[in-house]
Every structure is written in structure tokens, then in C-alpha cells.
């Protein structure tokens, strides 16, 4: 694939913007969690784009590919899975208390 790096980064920016829009506007907690996953995916995509660009330079110099990007992306995926598990457990606990998953129902700390 000879797609330039900026296209990958642009796709990451668009996905991140969509994730922020869902995170800020939706009231359903599960959809909010999904928007966070979208944003983490966009961050991973930008890591991949940067690693690919640096790998190209390093391969031209005769060195091996750059591994910092993929390693960090794998750690991000692990942390994202952890975040989804904890968030969904919190949602289940909240549903048990209030029989709803709406963000409107957990506004006690706001007042």
C-alpha cells in the first residue's frame, strides 16, 4: 500500500472527532463507552501511521523496522480491553441500583 502517511493520520483525526462527538452528546452509558473505544482505535491508527513512516526511513538506512509504534499499540489495546471490562462492570452495578443506564441518572456529584 503506497497510501501517504497523512491520509492515515487524517482518518485517525476523523475517527477521533466522531468518538468525541459520541462521548459528549450521547446519554447512553454503553454508547459512551463505545465512543471511548473509537477514540482509542483512532490513537492506535495514528501510532501505526507514525511507525510505518519511521520504518520506511529505517529500512532505507538498512536497519530493522521501527517497533515502538506496534508495541505501544498492543499495550493500548490491552488497556482498552481492561477499560471496557471495568466500565461494563460499573454499568451493571449502576443498573442494579437504578434500573437505568442513562447518564442523567448519575448526576449526584454535579449539584
Amino acid at each position, binding site marked *: *500500500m*503506497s*497510501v*501517504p*502517511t*497523512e*491520509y*492515515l493520520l*487524517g*482518518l485517525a483525526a476523523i*475517527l*477521533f*472527532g*466522531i468518538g*468525541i*462527538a*459520541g462521548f*459528549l*452528546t*450521547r446519554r447512553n452509558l*454503553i454508547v459512551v*463507552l*463505545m*465512543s471511548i*473505544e*473509537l477514540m482509542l*482505535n483512532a490513537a*492506535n491508527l495514528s501510532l*501505526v501511521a507514525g*511507525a*510505518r*513512516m519511521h520504518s*520506511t*526511513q529505517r*529500512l*532505507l538506512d538498512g536497519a*530493522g*523496522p*521501527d*517497533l515502538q509504534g*506496534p*508495541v505501544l499499540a*498492543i*499495550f493500548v*489495546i*490491552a488497556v*482498552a*480491553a*481492561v477499560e*471496557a*471490562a*471495568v466500565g461494563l*462492570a*460499573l*454499568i*451493571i*452495578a449502576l*443498573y442494579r*441500583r437504578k434500573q437505568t443506564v442513562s447518564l442523567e441518572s448519575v448526576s*449526584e456529584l454535579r449539584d
Partner: protein
Amino acid sequence: MANLLFYLMATLATVCAIGVVVARSPVVSVVSLLGSFASLAIIYLLAGYQFLAAVQILVYGGAVMVLFLFTIMLLNLGDPAVIHGESEPLFHHSRRTLLGLGVAAAVGAAGLIAILRVAWSAMPQPAELPEGGLDPLDQLAASMFTHYSLAFEAASVLLLATAVGVLVLAKRNRRPTAEVFPRESQQPATPSSPPTSTPSAGAQGQEVAEEGVLS
């Protein structure tokens, strides 16, 4: 050919991401999210990251999707118009919605402008992929178990702590008062309080105060 596939997958990822945000039913959102994950995995594959694509499919397409779907099915959170016979508006609080959309558009536009301002012609342009892709598994494993071993161990400790924490959070309390955290586990944690003072009165006061906050 690969470029065409990239544009196709980028379009699909964007459309599916929009579908996650605007879908009324959480199940539709989850399926859209799965489409977005799959298109991103194909983009990783096209960019030369084979192992990352496999991890994306396994962890996101497998584990995280099952978690989301299981929660939705467990709590019976389908389309609210179908389940409750009422159709709530998708976005409440129009001012807040407008503000959120404005912030999202600003962040996305700022990212796009920052990307456009870089002199990409001076950067190395992507060439032909090497034989094993850009993340050869042997080098990746060697790097992860030597140079990044501390982060690896931290991730394993994080996973263990998550397993314990999720068990504590999701454990059903068998007492009639539906408390997420049992109160017995908190009382022995205050040894400094004098034993003669009635702890029940203090606990009752605490309970009343908490109920006042919660109601």
C-alpha cells in the same frame, strides 16, 4: 489495488463510526463498532502490521465485542422504542449536544489542519513492504520481553487487578439493601475510633447522609 482497498476500508470505518454514534439501539451501535474495528484491522494489514491486525480482531472483535453484547443482552437494553413502547429523543439537551458537536468538530479540524501543515514531501514516502511485514513477530517479542519488560509486567498486574476489581464490582449482593459495596468491609478499616462509642449510630448517620445524597 491496495490503495483502492484502503480508501474503501477508510470509508467503511468512518461510516461505521458515525453509525455507532447515531444509532438508536445499542445493538446496532455494537455491530457498527465491530465493522469499524474490522475495517481498521484490514487497514493495519495493508500498512504491513500483520500481528497488530490479528490482535485487533482477537481482542476487539472477539473479547470486547462479546463483553458489550453480553452486557446489552443481560440488561435487556435493546431499542427503547421497542422495549418500552416509547421513543425518547436520541440527543437530550440541545445546547449540550450542540456544544459537544462543536468541540468534536473543533478537535477533528485542529487535527486535520495540523496534519496538513506538516511538510509531508520531506518525509520518507512508504515503499514496498519487507517480507515479514513491518512488525515481525520474533523482533516484536524480543523487544517486548527485553526492552519493554517493565511495561509488560505492569500490563499483567493491571489485568490481574482488573479481574479482581470486576469481580468485586459485579458480584451480586445477597442482602436486601442493594448495596454495591457491603458495609461490613468498611467498618474494620477504622481502628482509631474509640470502641465505646456506639458504632451503629455512626453507621446509621453515615447511611442517612448517603441516602440524602443519593435521593
